[in-house]
């Protein structure tokens, strides 16, 4: 008989255009589900489409674990979706576009929101677009978030969300965090 599969729900969030839909598309084993629509607001010049409900993808992780990846919309007007998705999260990946410092504030707001909605879920920050020349180094991004990098327990990575290797590296780091927490909980109880 096949061992029962453990499912870890990972929520991928971050500001508009951070690369949430791309991140999930890059790694998903099933054809990922997106709900992108043509952008008609001020973001339209940045990219043609924007997520209006959610993204979904799936990755097998070892013999008996599967990651279900849920991408949120980035636009503030869809914050009810952040709420719906974050409440179910076992782990959170916050993406911040390293090449657009203007969006760091929105990213740090989302970080606080995620912390509040899913205080138990391990979280890590991945700076996307790090392949671009104008990308900020991760060490400079955290202070912009109001986070002291030396004290922060939040793992951070610089990634290219279009590269499978980078997305895999991010998810492995998150699963490790998740496993550590579960073990710590088991010992404590």
């Amino acid at each position, binding site marked *: 008989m096949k061992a029962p599969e453990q499912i870890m729900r990972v929520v991928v969030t971050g500001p508009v255009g951070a690369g949430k839909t791309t991140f999930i598309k890059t790694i998903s084993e099933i054809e990922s*589900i997106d*709900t992108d*629509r*043509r*952008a*008609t*607001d001020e973001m339209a010049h940045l990219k043609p489409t*924007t997520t*209006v*409900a*959610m993204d979904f993808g799936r990755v097998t992780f070892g013999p008996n674990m599967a990651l279900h990846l849920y991408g949120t*919309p980035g*636009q503030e*007007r*869809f914050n*009810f*979706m952040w709420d719906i998705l974050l409440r179910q999260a076992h782990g959170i990946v916050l993406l911040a576009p390293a090449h657009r410092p203007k969006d760091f504030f929105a990213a740090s707001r989302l970080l606080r929101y995620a912390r509040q909605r899913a205080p138990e879920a391990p979280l890590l920050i991945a700076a996307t677009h790090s392949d671009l020349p104008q990308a900020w180094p991760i060490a400079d991004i955290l202070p912009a978030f109001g986070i002291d990098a030396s004290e922060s327990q939040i793992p951070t990575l610089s990634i290219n969300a279009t590269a499978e290797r980078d997305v895999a590296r991010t998810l492995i780091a998150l699963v490790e965090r998740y496993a550590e927490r579960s073990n710590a909980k088991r010992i404590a109880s």
Partner: protein
Amino acid sequence: MPINYSAIQSALQEFVTSVSNVQGASIMSPDGLAIASSLPAGMEEERVAAMSAAMLALGERIGRELSRGQIERILVEGEKGYAIVSSCTEDAVLIVLTDEKVKLGVINLEVRQLIDRLRPSLTFAKTNVA
């Protein structure tokens, strides 16, 4: 021809006041930005717009995934009435709110007729400036 907001607005208002059991109606872009509305007091246009767009996108996606063919409408049935979301044109989505006593057959027909009336004012002219 730019979108005629006031024509859409008055069409919605007329729909809400003249069709029985209808409590509100709103039009938004498929990416969830409000275009025009006639909504019950206290209901935020921006929020209704974002939620309707999300619901339609998710509903259409579910319809495709589960082989339901062309999606006519997405329906939320509550104790106090219905929320009915339909795609109007490529550039517009419509949500209609009714009380619980509405006859679905009647309202579906009314909504379809409203969409037909609105359609000409709802297609963004693709101005091809060379």
